[in-house]
């Protein structure tokens, strides 16, 4: 317990959460064409609590975004904040995804 002084990184935090990934089904998909044509605000990158949305050219370089659903906590923030409807958001199939135990 003495080691708890050093804050955990987001990756370490996400490792604590049990997630059963459905490798055959991405429950969220973004449409890069819509993003490219319309997006100037990148609300998904700022809103996501699990850093599933990242700028391709590094953390500070606002621009094209890549998305990976694997660490998704299924909160739905990206669906609501995207003003362009580029986020096609569905829940994971039954039994897949996050499984909280202490929340």
């Amino acid at each position, binding site marked *: *317990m*003495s080691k*708890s002084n050093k*804050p*955990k990184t*987001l990756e370490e*935090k*996400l490792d*604590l*959460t049990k997630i*059963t990934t459905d490798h055959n089904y991405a429950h969220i998909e973004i449409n890069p064409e819509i993003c490219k044509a319309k997006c100037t*605000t*990148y*609300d998904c*990158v*700022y*809103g*996501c*609590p*699990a*850093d599933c949305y990242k700028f391709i050219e590094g953390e500070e370089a606002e621009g094209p975004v890549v998305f990976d659903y694997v660490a998704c*906590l*299924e*909160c*739905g*923030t990206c*669906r*609501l*904040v995207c003003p362009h409807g580029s986020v096609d*958001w*569905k*829940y*994971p*199939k*039954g*039994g897949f*995804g*996050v*499984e*909280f*135990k*202490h*929340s």
Partner: protein
Amino acid sequence: MSEEFDFDVAIVGAGPAGISAALTLAKAGIETVVLERGQYSGAKNVSGAALYGPILNELIPNYWEDENSFERYLTTKKITLLSESKSVTIDADLRNFNQVPYNGVTVIRPKFDRWLADKAEEAGAMILPDTMVEDLVWKDKQIIGVKSGEEVLKAKLVIIAEGANSILVEKAKLAKKPKPRHFALGMKETYKLPKKKMEERFHLDDKEGLSNEILGYSKGIPGGGFYYTNQDTVSFGLILNMGVLTKKKLKAPEVFEEFKEHSYIKKLLKDAEMIEYSAHIIPEGGFKHMPKLYGNGVLVVGDAAGMVLNAGLYIEGINFALESGKIAGEAAIEILQTNNYTKKQTRLYKKKLKESFAYKDLKTFKRASHFLENKMMFTYVPDLLTGLFEKLLRNNGYPRKRIVTSAIGYVFKKGKLFGLLKLLIGAVRSL
């Protein structure tokens, strides 16, 4: 209608709202099925506050006799204002809240929701976990069931208890996609803290608990931190208005980490080991931004119905979920007797809901959500008050002035008087 139905009522979502409805229906002998996408009830759920004892007691009489039902009953409530290096806390120690059915209790949702679901099952409801409802089944303009994968399940009434991120409410044409400014993102961490240590830290006796709301130091984003004690874990989190968060171009997890850097928070979490990270969204639009609560063949309950109150001192969700679920169950029993499941009959739910404390609270505080969008509440006010205390308490060798004189002088010096006045008027009008 000559439709063949598999069940009288199909409920989507086995959280508190859905289970409360199921329990009410099953007790009355209604054939009820609950479809839950999680591995079990509560597996997808995150909560940030307390449950009202009296409400739970109404649903499950003498719930406290079962050790598994709750974590701790709340006897201490703290409200803290944070600024850069300071904090001011109001500490309400209400030991007389230690009487059953208890004023408020803390729960761990994966545990509590499962416990509640067991009660509904015992009463005769069928609960199907691992079942994702993707869509509704329509006949003309009437909802007559739900779809999960290839399977269709027909029911006279569908109750949507899908939670805050309700896609089915939109599919049922009861609401459009909500605006981010009417929603908040809650991030939460659960920490292991040995029972003895926790009780020493917070001056709690066995089973007594504390909750702490924390305002300020959130980069000026409306919202706030929360902290409460479970049996041998503590739940800590930060709630941020989604619209403002993204407009400020601040990353949610980073705002959370920086919030934790405040010495007040560090002390709360000292020597505790993080065991889980979770996140969830919270409807905060209040009374004015609730979806339509009923339609042909359908009722909406809990978070899906936007039944969450954020009025600063009170942040309610689960209690409204339990209450709206129960009322939907009661209404459904009556609706089923009429053999007519159209809007004409389902509106009975809203009529009954209007009489409930949940709906009335939402109405009473209908201006609160707009008021709490005022950013001054989250920056200027905590700065002002913590600064004022510092000024009043600092010993600098000069003779002291009267407290009132010092206070007025300080407030004048900090400026923004007009804004503060507007804020006070807003508070009086909305809270």
